[in-house]
């Protein structure tokens, strides 16, 4: 391989690194000062691309292009300030999880607003006036615009550095990143500081998005792509470190470029296609970095508060609970005699997602560990079940029964890494594993069918009627959910909760906290895997989407909607979410907008989750 082969890819990678840095630095600044993990940061980036392209469509020439970029940055900054003042300002004192849920809701709302304004089709942007040509460097044609972007990275880093070191505002931001309370005691009103940081961070996200318009079309899935990339950069660089973000963006840009340039290489007799690694290499880098340096390359050990240290009472299910459960399941079993087929399909979905949400809740509630990548286990279950039937010729029932074991094995492996970290870092690592799983499914064409997925995975004949499959799903989901609840209230579940409530106390009482957290992973994974297996036969096909970030987010929303502190909450949340999604989809294509608005209203009105808040309104005497 010569330099001429490598150079174009390297330039491309470095150009990507620049926008990645802009995006990530905004996220990092916002987190550093407000401690909010802003999932909507990718949505701001997406808005930047759309607004930028719209301006160039209306105003031609250099003014339209460069003016468009500036307008996009400023418009997105305004949107960021609106999000901060209307939503986040009200919930800075709420648990981190609810801030997270609120930003998820913003993601949903922004996505549908973009759909309304700009439509579902990707929109190509213009090329940059004056920078449309390529220059020849060492025999390679290098686009001028790429060179411009490469210069932008260090320029923005320099400007940010000047802003943070030479202005009073910058000094206050740095001080607040270290010790917010002390800054307040010195007379600084944090509210303005927070709003200002949000404006700057959003401006950077908007600019990053707008600067990409000559290189990639505006599309509605940019939000989640951007947020995951930004998370990876920030976590690898170290939360709150600007220089860390810059280095991490460069490293990721270069490594991705190398993977493309290397192509297929013979290693020890095997042909390894490195180009396929591009989708996953940043997550491998992140997993590797976190394994060696749990706080990222330039991060300092900051006290990352555990996201879910609820102190609310958890009452062990008594006889009445069990009776209620049996009656509930019996009623559900009677449903096929009264409702139509449409509702049965919806019911099957609800059962599947109730199990999925309950399994995620097992990690988040008793385990106190937030997972951003729970769909990995769901998707792994779906693929394992499908492949057992398709490739190994197993029966459907055999595949469904075997799947939880396979998912548990995966959970054991993933969990081993994850429990070494805590809080946001743990969540990020689960996200990394989920993305790795997704890209394997996406790229392993021979086995998984790649992006096309697998089709024709229908239930066995005896369960092919909608009502029969509904019963089958109920027969698996109800005992599985019950089993998860049982473990929660078995000695293991109590040891897990003990480690969450008071880790030092639990260790002093002989409880191996890390190991209990580790073992929670296979249990949760088994539940999610079973849900995935039931899902695939109900749909008859599957694609990598089954384990995309969006599904992990759906799971989180279900759990948080229902409330982390109750057993029934996640099940109720799953039912509510799935029903709302279905209901709104029937009336409007903008179901995300409705759902996001509902979630936002719920978060602002009930910062404890729906079931949690309802039970707080109607307290049931003393604990039993």
């Amino acid at each position, binding site marked *: 391989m010569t330099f001429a082969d490598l150079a174009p890819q390297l330039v491309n990678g470095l150009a990507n690194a620049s926008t990645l840095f802009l995006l990530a630095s905004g996220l990092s600044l916002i987190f550093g000062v407000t401690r909010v993990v802003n999932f909507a940061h990718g949505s701001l980036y997406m808005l930047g691309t759309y607004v930028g392209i719209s301006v160039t469509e209306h105003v031609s020439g250099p003014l339209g292009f460069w003016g468009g970029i500036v307008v996009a940055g400023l418009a997105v900054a305004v949107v960021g300030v609106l999000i901060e003042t209307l939503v986040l300002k009200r919930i800075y004192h709420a648990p981190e999880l609810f801030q997270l849920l609120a930003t998820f809701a913003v993601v949903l709302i922004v996505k549908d607003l973009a759909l309304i304004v700009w439509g579902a089709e990707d929109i190509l942007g213009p090329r940059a006036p004056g920078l449309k040509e390529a220059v020849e460097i060492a025999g390679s044609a290098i686009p001028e615009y790429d060179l411009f972007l490469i210069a932008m990275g260090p320029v923005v880093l320099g400007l940010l550095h000047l802003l943070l070191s030479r202005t009073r505002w910058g000094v206050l931001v740095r001080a607040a990143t270290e010790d917010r309370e002390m800054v307040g005691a010195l007379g600084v009103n944090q509210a303005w500081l927070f709003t200002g940081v949000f404006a700057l961070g959003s401006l950077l996200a908007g600019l990053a998005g707008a600067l990409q318009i000559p290189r990639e079309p505006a599309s509605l899935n940019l939000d989640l792509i951007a947020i995951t990339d930004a998370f990876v950069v920030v976590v690898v660089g170290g939360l709150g470190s600007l220089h860390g973000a810059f280095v991490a963006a460069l490293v990721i840009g270069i490594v991705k470029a190398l993977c493309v340039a290397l192509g297929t290489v013979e290693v020890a007799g095997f042909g390894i296609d490195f180009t396929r690694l591009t989708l996953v290499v940043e997550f491998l880098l992140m997993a590797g970095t976190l394994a060696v340096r749990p706080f990222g390359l330039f991060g300092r050990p900051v006290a990352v508060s555990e996201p879910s240290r*609820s*102190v*609310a*009472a*958890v*009452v*062990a299910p008594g006889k009445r609970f069990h009776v209620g459960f049996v009656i509930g399941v019996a009623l559900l079993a009677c449903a096929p005699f009264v409702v139509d087929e449409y509702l049965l399909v919806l019911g099957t979905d609800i059962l599947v997602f109730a199990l999925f949400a309950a399994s995620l809740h097992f990690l988040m509630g008793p385990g106190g560990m937030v997972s951003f990548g729970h769909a990995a286990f769901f998707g792994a279950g779906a693929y394992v079940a499908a492949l057992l039937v398709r490739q190994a010729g197993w029966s459907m029932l055999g595949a469904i029964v075997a799947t939880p074991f396979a998912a548990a094995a995966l959970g054991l492996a993933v969990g081993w890494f994850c429990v070494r970290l805590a809080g946001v870092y743990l969540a990020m690592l689960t996200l990394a594993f989920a993305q790795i799983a997704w890209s394997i499914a996406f790229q392993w064409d021979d086995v998984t069918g790649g992006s096309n997925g697998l089709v024709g995975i229908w239930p066995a004949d005896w369960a092919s009627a909608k009502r029969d499959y509904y019963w089958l799903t109920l027969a698996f989901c109800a005992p599985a959910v019950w089993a998860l609840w*049982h*473990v929660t*209230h*078995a*000695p*293991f*579940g*109590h*040891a897990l*909760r*003990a480690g*969450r*409530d*008071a880790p*030092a*106390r*639990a*260790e*002093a*009482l*002989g*409880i*191996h906290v890390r*190991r*209990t957290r580790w*073992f929670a992973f296979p*249990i949760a994974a088994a539940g999610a895997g079973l849900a995935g297996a039931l899902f695939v036969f109900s749909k008859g096909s599957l694609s990598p989407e089954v384990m995309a970030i969006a599904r992990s987010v759906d799971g989180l929303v279900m759990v948080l909607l229902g409330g982390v*502190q109750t057993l029934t909450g996640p099940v109720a949340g799953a039912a509510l979410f799935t029903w709302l999604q279905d209901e709104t989809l029937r009336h409007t294509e903008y179901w995300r907008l409705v759902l996001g608005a509902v979630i936002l209203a719920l978060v602002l009105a009930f910062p404890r989750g729906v079931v949690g808040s309802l039970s707080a309104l109607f307290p049931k005497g*003393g*604990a*039993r």
Partner: protein
Amino acid sequence: MNLLEARDLEKRYGGVHAVAGVSFSVAAGERVALIGPNGAGKSTCFNLIGGQVRPDAGSVVLDGKPVTGMKPRALFRRGVARTFQITATFASMSVVENVQAAIASHLGESFRPAGSATHAHRDAALALLARVGLDAQSDRHCAQLAYGDSKRLELAMALANAPRLLLMDEPTAGMAPGERHALMDLVTRLTASDGVSVLFTEHDMDIVFAHADRLLVLDRGRLIAQGAPSAVRADPEVQRIYLGGHA
């Protein structure tokens, strides 16, 4: 024979020599208080014994066997229990469930995924709660307990492994004055009958003098005096550090 021996313990944090060569022992059944001004190294010293912090040098010997740097959960299996300055109970559980979790751990059942934790060992847990006088509140949620009662709950949990050594970090901190002696009387009653040794840090001098057999006085990471309460009280060096002789 001494139950606990600390030999030449050292711990540095950056440039700060938090514990600079501390040696002492605790005899079986003895109640020893570790005192000293703020920043003297009491907490660090205490955490070195309890396994929360690893010493840079020196050793800890329990019952003739080295336990230096052993994790708290391993020390628990060897009969060391502790309470924390900030009460740390399992806030999502009921009072009796807290004790049941401790008993389950003592019996090695923390990984049992089946069976009801609410029913297992309930009688044994209630018996422990009765010993600390909390049996009437056993089914309350532990967030509803008065502060002094959660201290007693912690004590009940610490007794779940029938310890030989009980470590208590500022056991009466944050309690109303009247409750303090009641709690320490309870500790004395519970431990004396079984010959349990107690090592505690405390800043309430009334408590220290009323409830310790022997005092260890730390200042700037060093042990500057030890002995019977009356002897330590008369020690001019001790008077000096408490009344400020540095200026």
